[in-house]
């Protein structure tokens, strides 16, 4: 009996440990029945909301591509195809768009996808009491919608608005149910009701979102090879912020597909050598990884200095050594996939001698410590570098080294997102290194429209009436060839003014197990998984 208490103590401790580990478990594998075909996808972050109208984040649209549908669909090549709208026409003045809707489309709560539903969705976005995300910019100049008949809706704008045709095919303007949404309050952020091949069934914060197959889906989406419901029973989108862990899950089979975002490029070679996996890469639309040069702050307020920087940076070295297969050399403020501009690729070829000559002509003579001087002042440039917590972006450090060879003392202002934004709003540095995804050439409006100085995203602080005129013209012209010509002129003007250093046209990369078939992507490079099967 003397030993009873110590033994009891040990037993209690061991029992306590087991109870804590087992008893606190909040979930267990489902028992019985055939396992549903589940595709588990690893994402780098959790979306702030799944409400397409409210979200400022691309993650939202990756998840709901197969939940909420659009009037039009833009395929990976950029071609616009009918989706919930069977056809459309544009008024001669370019201010009104009339969509004829399919009559067999229903939201998963049974409400019809009709003209009133389209109007309700768009009116909700511009409602001043609603905190809209990227959707508000997509409806720039919205003047209201008119229900012409139950399945015909006219969307009106104050000014001609050609980019609307691509924006209406983007995730921000995907449609959710006017029947359920007003009744569900904040729950719309976690379980929006769409008309697509999947329904959001479960949302576990900081863990995962589960979509289940919409068995009542009868149509053939424009991306699909077949009519009717999706190929898998469930899609589980898991949030795995740590890149190394995310990669491990696809290698072990815990996930079948992962986003390669924020993963070191060096990992790609190893994954490509793994026979159980395949790597799918697609070019992002919009602006490349780009250094916007602040044209208001010395010394980048001097055209010759900006041109010297463009000649003096070896962009191929950035693409090869930092991106290693995750991008190609950029030539212009829009990626070559978005708007091919071969002439601009020939401009500003890496030429350190020409860069040095331009600086010499401008009075910046080589001084002590390999830094150029003018009127007793060193040639110092401050790069605004966003720091996500793991140090400087490697491309910024490479640029710093290349500029030093040119005699430019580039200082990296490495900071977290809040002060990084603040400096950009105030044109306080010589410009940030950033990127911008846009499905239309009109993305140049956000980057270089004079009204966006001090806001998002004209961080070159560039205000040029001639450029503003071309931006307005690009919104008014509908003919694709003429539009191309306008935006090519605009890009040429921007590069003549040397307002930015385009660095790398980045690729969207997904790593997928070979058991997963029939993945496809939309123009935004978001995976479209309605056709996927697992074998």
């Amino acid at each position, binding site marked *: 009996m003397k030993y009873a208490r110590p033994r009891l103590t040990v037993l209690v401790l061991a029992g306590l440990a087991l109870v804590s580990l087992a008893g606190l478990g909040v979930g267990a594998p489902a028992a019985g029945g055939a396992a549903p075909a589940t595709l588990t996808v690893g994402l780098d972050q959790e979306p702030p909301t799944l409400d397409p109208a409210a979200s400022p984040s691309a993650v939202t649209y990756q998840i709901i591509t197969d939940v909420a549908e659009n009037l039009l669909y833009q395929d990976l090549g950029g071609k616009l195809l009918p989706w919930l709208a069977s056809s459309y026409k544009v008024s001669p003045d370019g201010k009104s768009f009339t969509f004829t809707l399919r009559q067999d489309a229903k939201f998963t709560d049974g409400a019809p996808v009709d003209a009133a539903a389209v109007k309700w969705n768009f009116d909700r976005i511009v409602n001043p009491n609603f905190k809209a*995300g990227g959707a508000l910019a997509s409806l720039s100049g919205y003047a209201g919608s008119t229900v012409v008949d139950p399945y015909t809706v006219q969307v009106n704008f104050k000014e001609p608005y050609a980019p609307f045709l691509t924006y209406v095919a983007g995730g921000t303007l995907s449609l959710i149910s006017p029947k359920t949404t007003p009744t569900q309050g904040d729950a719309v952020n976690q379980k929006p009701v769409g008309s697509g091949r999947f329904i959001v069934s479960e949302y576990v914060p900081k863990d995962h979102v589960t979509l289940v197959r919409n068995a009542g889906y009868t149509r053939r989406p424009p991306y699909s090879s077949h009519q009717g419901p999706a190929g898998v029973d469930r899609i589980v989108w898991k949030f795995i912020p740590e890149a190394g862990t995310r990669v491990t899950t696809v290698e072990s089979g815990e996930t079948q597909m992962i986003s390669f975002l924020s993963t070191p490029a060096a990992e790609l070679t190893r994954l490509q050598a793994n026979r159980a996996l395949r790597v799918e890469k697609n070019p992002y639309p919009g602006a490349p990884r780009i250094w916007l040069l602040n044209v208001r702050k010395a010394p980048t307020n001097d055209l010759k200095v900006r041109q010297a920087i463009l000649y003096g940076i070896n962009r191929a070295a950035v693409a090869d050594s930092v991106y290693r297969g995750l991008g190609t050399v950029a030539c212009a403020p829009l990626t070559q996939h978005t708007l091919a501009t071969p002439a601009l690729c020939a401009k500003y070829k890496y030429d350190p001698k020409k860069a040095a000559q331009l600086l010499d002509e401008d009075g910046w003579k080589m001084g002590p410590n390999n830094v150029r001087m003018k009127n007793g002042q060193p040639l110092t440039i401050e790069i605004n570098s966003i720091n996500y917590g793991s140090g400087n972006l490697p491309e910024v450090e490479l640029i710093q080294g290349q500029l030093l060879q040119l005699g430019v003392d580039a200082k990296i202002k490495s900071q977290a997102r809040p002060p990084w934004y603040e400096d950009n709003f105030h044109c306080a540095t010589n410009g940030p290194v950033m990127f911008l995804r846009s499905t239309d050439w009109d993305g140049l409006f956000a980057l270089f429209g004079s009204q966006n100085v001090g806001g998002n995203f004209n961080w070159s602080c560039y205000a040029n009436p001639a450029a503003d005129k071309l931006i307005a013209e690009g919104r008014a012209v509908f003919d694709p060839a003429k539009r191309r010509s306008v935006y090519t002129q605009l890009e040429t003007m921007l590069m003549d003014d040397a307002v930015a250093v385009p660095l790398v046209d980045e690729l969207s990369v997904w790593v997928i197990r070979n058991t997963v078939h029939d993945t496809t992507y939309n123009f935004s490079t978001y995976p479209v998984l309605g056709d996927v099967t697992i074998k």
Partner: protein
Amino acid sequence: MARYIAGRLLVTIPVVVGVTLAVFSMLYLIPGDPVKMMLSEFETNPAQIARMRAQLRLNEPFVQQYGQFVWNAARGNLGESIRDRRPVATEIRELFPSTVQLALSALIFSIALGVPLGLLAAIRQNSWADVGAMMAARIGVSMPSFWLGLLLIFVFSLQLGLLPATGGGGIDHLLMPAFALGAGAAAITAALTRSSMLEVLRMDYMTTARAKGLAGAAVILRHGLANALIPIVTIFGLQAGQLLAGAVIIETVFGRPGIGQLLVAAILNKDFPLVQGVVLFVAIVYVLINLAVDVAYAAIDPRIRYG
């Protein structure tokens, strides 16, 4: 006892006031306009900016704003997350159980491993068992938890395929995060148990117990460990706080839901109400844990007088 607890509670008041002041001042310590930064991802108009400013009471005097913040917090109203658009208190309430599950499992693991290891090292002082146990403890304490976490994922998920690397859920999702988080605490517990036990073993009452004819194990456990536990219990309080802090890293490494991951995401997304709410909540939990330890300390050691 009640007077002692009341006294300790009184002492925590200035600490909690200090915490609320520090948390509230965050909004003022960052450079620039907080509203503009919070809404930088959104398309906003001046009316929305004005509404947000009014919602955060930024137009009112500092003292008034602070008073309102404390009053709201005391009623459980920590504001609304800007990015997630949900009440901060709701987000904390949803995720805190998962963090507690992780921290508690790590704590129990650290006790279950650390105490026996320290005990073994003490009673077999200067033997191979002692050297081995203390070497394991030093390795444990010097190994960063995130690195150990990645190592565990590499071995048990990728190479052996035994455990899932990510997510919340059942015990299989908990084992590796709990081990990674608790390893450092186990090492500290082992070292402390050893030194505390060595001290106790030299005491006269231990000799007396042996002289009375008690068997070795009973002397060690009932007379030795019971007395050696006092400083160890104190360290549990500190460790509980550190485990909550460590959960920030471990939850991110293992993609596990919890307030650690919530805090990291809030910081990265400049979601100030959420950062304020989580920091305030964790700080108060930390204060309460230390209070509980102080009370337990007094209860375990009869030499400590209440009052």
